[in-house]
């Protein structure tokens, strides 16, 4: 019995040997490009610098295009992505969730809208048949997948029943909303958060738009860890994120900035992997990765 206990302790110790612990190296955080590379780095360089200072470990920020993320994930230590990319990387690359980002009226949750202009007379999803619709990026859970789910549930197949397109280049969410506003398209797929932000900035008038459908609430952007990072270090990283306060500052390029304000978030909160099951089910219904069938 005693031998067994000692053997077990030795085994346990070998798993926790110093080399398996935190290494002194530069850790790489991959940030999904939301609008443009420049905007992404502008938002998240202070957060990266703050984490370096807080954890006494050098971090490097890397802005990565949505479609390139899964190609590069194995070279990263931490990821900042939307909920669909997390679900893909969790299944195909062993990435694990750490924290969810809070922003906008729904906190750590987000939803997609289908918007039209009030003057168009389109009041419901069933009126969209035969109309033109503009979507956001394909891997956007609240700018593409959520709206596709609504359409399919209402018997509308975008391939057959709509003329649809996706704007090229950066700032796709804004292009979708402006595309509807200026009458280029009958309807648009926009994330609630971007719609609210443009209303509060005074760039669009809420009263000119009709929200014809709302998707279900799903987790917003999140921070996750790749499978090769030490679990203890990942826990410390998570705690550092959860502890960031509204007034926390850091010096970047000679300027002292508020970390959360610059990142355009209200804070970070705990989240579990099962919270993403709604995204998984939506991906299955809409035949999206990682559950795509050919």
């Amino acid at each position, binding site marked *: 019995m005693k031998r067994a206990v000692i053997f077990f302790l030795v085994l346990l110790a*070998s798993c926790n040997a110093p*080399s398996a612990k935190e290494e002194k190296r530069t850790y790489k955080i991959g940030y999904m490009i939301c609008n443009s590379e420049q905007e992404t780095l502008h938002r998240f360089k202070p957060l990266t610098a703050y984490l370096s200072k807080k954890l006494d470990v050098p971090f490097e920020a890397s802005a990565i295009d949505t479609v390139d993320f*899964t*190609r590069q994930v194995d070279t990263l230590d931490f990821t900042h992505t939307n909920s669909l990319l997390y679900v893909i990387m969790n299944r*195909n690359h*062993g*990435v694990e969730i750490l924290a969810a980002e809070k922003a906008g009226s729904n906190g750590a949750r987000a939803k997609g809208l289908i918007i039209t202009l009030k003057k168009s007379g389109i009041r419901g999803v069933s009126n969209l048949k035969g109309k033109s619709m503009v979507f956001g990026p394909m891997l956007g859970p609240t700018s593409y997948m959520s709206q596709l789910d609504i359409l399919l549930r209402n018997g509308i197949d975008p391939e057959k029943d709509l003329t649809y397109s996706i704007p090229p280049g950066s700032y796709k969410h804004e292009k979708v909303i402006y595309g509807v506003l200026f009458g280029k398209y009958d309807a648009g797929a926009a994330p609630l958060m971007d719609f609210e932000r443009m209303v509060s900035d005074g760039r669009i008038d809420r009263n000119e738009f009709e929200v014809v459908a709302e998707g279900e609430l799903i987790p917003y952007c999140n921070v996750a860890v790749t*499978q090769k990072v030490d679990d203890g270090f990942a826990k410390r990283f998570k705690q550092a994120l959860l502890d960031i306060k509204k007034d926390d500052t850091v010096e970047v390029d000679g300027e002292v900035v508020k970390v959360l304000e610059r990142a355009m978030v209200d804070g970070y909160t705990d989240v579990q992997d099962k919270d993403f099951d709604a995204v998984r089910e939506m991906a299955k219904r809409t035949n999206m990765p990682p559950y795509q069938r*050919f």
Partner: protein
Amino acid sequence: MDWLDRLSLWAIVILIISSFAVIVGHVGEARPDRYMRQSAAATDYVVANGERDSMLKLARQLMEGVNLDKAEPLARELLQKYPYDGQSHMVMGDVLMRKQEPVKAVSEYREAIDINPDFLDKKTPLFQGKKIKTAVAEALAEIDRKISLAPDDGSLKRERKMIYYLQRRIAGSCG
């Protein structure tokens, strides 16, 4: 128990504690050396297997580009050319996961791990344990669903045993 017995007892206790301390200390010291030897061996292997590495890289790129029509034949070719290389089985498993065939994928992951246990050792750069754990959970759910539809199917029982085997390997691994 006289003084000599007590002395022996203390000697045994001290011996056990110091042995334990020495083992733990040396486990840590031994790692960098092991890494150097591993990376040196890996470097030699890369030179000797340039073609294999190019094929692996291409197969992964095709997979991430959702081009499974080309990724799958390439993975099969890798298996044919390098059947005793764990990476060949790992890539095949990845292709099968993307084809929504978790049970077959887990079978390939099992082969990969049997050939090279480093895939379950977090202290090595090859670690894939968390990805495999997700695949195992999906495969188990799939097998249970199939068993509920055909309880007498012997092949399903064998597949479930294989999945449980992998689950035990993951549970006993460092990571």
